[in-house]
């Protein structure tokens, strides 16, 4: 049985599956494996009016907002995890620079539950979280109701179906079956909630490698529309077993995004003028990327699927 291969370049995948106006899930694995290379291709291709979805996104959402790609953000936290606030978010929300952005504020748990409800195929999932908060008052996708099985007050978290989920993974085969390990965040529900999935992989491996551990195949190929081989694509965020987090890069972005003209220079240098990840990594410098390389490997004990 031969399925159609889904391997394509990042420009092809973004051009084919992420139109302007789309609702896009990014950063599903929290501070690890953030698909920066995909997000920056969205900027280069000039996408507009995107709805950005993700619990937290570290500085990727801030960049997309600063580049004017987003009209709406559905998230629990937008900023710079190790360095502080996101200045592009502040300029957009406080001054409409470069454009106004509507914020639909979730908590991490309610964002996870919104994607979980969609993955389960139900209109909502109940929770006690956000009761008494202004998130509940202001976010129309959170609604208080009374439990049908007892008298408890609960919040119904409405299901959320992104048009596209972009996941950065450690390894995948050409059909999109992928192994993810380490930080999972909301990746499993997010991918099943989304209408389409783009997988960005550090490594493309033989189908036999993925099939050797079906419990680690958290992304089944049948939900995947495109597979992009883009090593280093998650930098400056880490990929367990591949490279560490470039903390300085986050601090540098913090300093260089405080003022609008500095941010515009940063964007020109790190996104607009770099056609792809290879060029990006060259500009970053082999020495600097080498600093993030794995110093000590730590391999998982084998599981025997034999019989």
């Amino acid at each position, binding site marked *: 049985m031969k399925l159609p291969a889904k391997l394509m370049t990042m420009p092809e995948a973004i051009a084919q599956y992420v139109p302007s106006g789309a609702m896009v899930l990014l950063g599903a*694995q*929290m*501070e*690890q494996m953030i698909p920066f290379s995909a997000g920056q291709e969205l900027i280069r291709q000039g996408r507009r009016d995107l709805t950005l979805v993700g*619990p*937290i996104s*570290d500085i990727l959402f801030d960049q997309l907002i600063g580049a004017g790609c987003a009209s709406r953000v559905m*998230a*629990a*936290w*937008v*900023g710079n*995890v*190790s360095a502080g*606030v*996101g200045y592009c*978010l*502040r300029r957009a*929300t*406080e001054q409409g620079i470069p454009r106004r952005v509507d*914020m639909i*504020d*979730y*908590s*991490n*748990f*309610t964002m*996870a*539950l919104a994607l*979980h409800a969609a993955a389960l195929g139900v209109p909502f999932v109940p*929770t*006690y*979280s*956000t*009761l*008494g*908060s*202004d*998130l509940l008052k202001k976010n129309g996708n959170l609604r*208080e109701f009374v439990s049908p099985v007892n008298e*408890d*007050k*609960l919040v119904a978290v409405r299901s959320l179906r992104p048009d596209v989920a972009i996941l950065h993974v450690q390894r995948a085969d050409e059909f999109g079956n992928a192994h993810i*390990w*380490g*930080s*999972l*965040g*909301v*990746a*499993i*529900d997010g991918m099943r909630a989304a209408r389409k999935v783009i997988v960005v992989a550090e490594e493309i491996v033989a189908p036999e490698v993925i099939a050797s551990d079906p419990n680690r195949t958290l992304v089944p190929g049948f939900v995947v529309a495109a597979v992009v081989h883009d090593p280093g694509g998650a930098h400056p965020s*880490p990929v*367990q077993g591949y490279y*560490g*987090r470039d*903390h300085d890069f*986050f601090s540098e972005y913090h300093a260089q995004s405080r003022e609008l003209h500095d941010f515009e220079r940063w964007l020109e240098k790190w996104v607009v003028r770099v056609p792809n990840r290879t060029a990006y990594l060259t500009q970053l410098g082999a020495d600097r990327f080498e600093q993030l390389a794995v110093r000590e490997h*730590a391999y998982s004990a084998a599981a025997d699927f034999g019989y």
Partner: protein
Amino acid sequence: MATALESQILARGYTYGELMVAAAAREIADGEFVFVGMRLPMLAFVVAKRTHAPAAIGLYENGLIRESPSPQLLYTMADPPNLRGATQCGQMLEVMALLQQGRVNVGFLGAAEVDRFGNLNSTWGGRHGEIHRLPGSGGACDIACLAQRTVVLLAHEKSRLRERVEFVTSPGFGRGNGWRVAQGLPPRSGPAALITTLGVLRYGSDGEAVLASTHPGVAVEDVLANTGWSLRVADNIAETPAPSSGELAAMRSLDPNHFWTK
């Protein structure tokens, strides 16, 4: 920066940040389930583990559960050293589920603003008429709603400790006594302590903040002058104990350059 820190250390033997981290670590009892927030709490958890609470269990909202402390300083909870050797790497939903089940004894939060009743704002801040966009809840609202106790870390400024917050990102005691239960929040939940750069505030049975201790060298008047409401003072007000040599050793072995403990 370094010189300012050095002068603090020369003057008292530790920095404000180190004092706050030590105070936060002491809020963790041995064997407790701890929901570890971003930033300073990541360090506080490791300090607790290495000193008085070796059996504490750390939960992180990215889906991680750890019983052995991270061997390296963490800038984010998903840094590779925090994943290797973890008890479990699962989904966010799974750790949040443990929180909602009521299994989490104490959760740590940061915020931009806090009010008299421990309600937190980290979404929309207002300063002299201007609106400021803040990063948002992250997991803070979930922890504030569902953890048995919550501990908040905050810089003590009049503009941050306010009579009323504009936006309740993470509910404390609302308007006071009985408010949380009326909202439908778990009976066993709510703020336990507010650790600031000047002292430690705790909460009375009516849900209002009370100054429980001032940090060494800080006068009660300084605290009151920097608080946005007429802050109650405990009869038995104490001085916040300085970090022990063990606590300082644990912190400094991880954060010698004071990334988190300025």
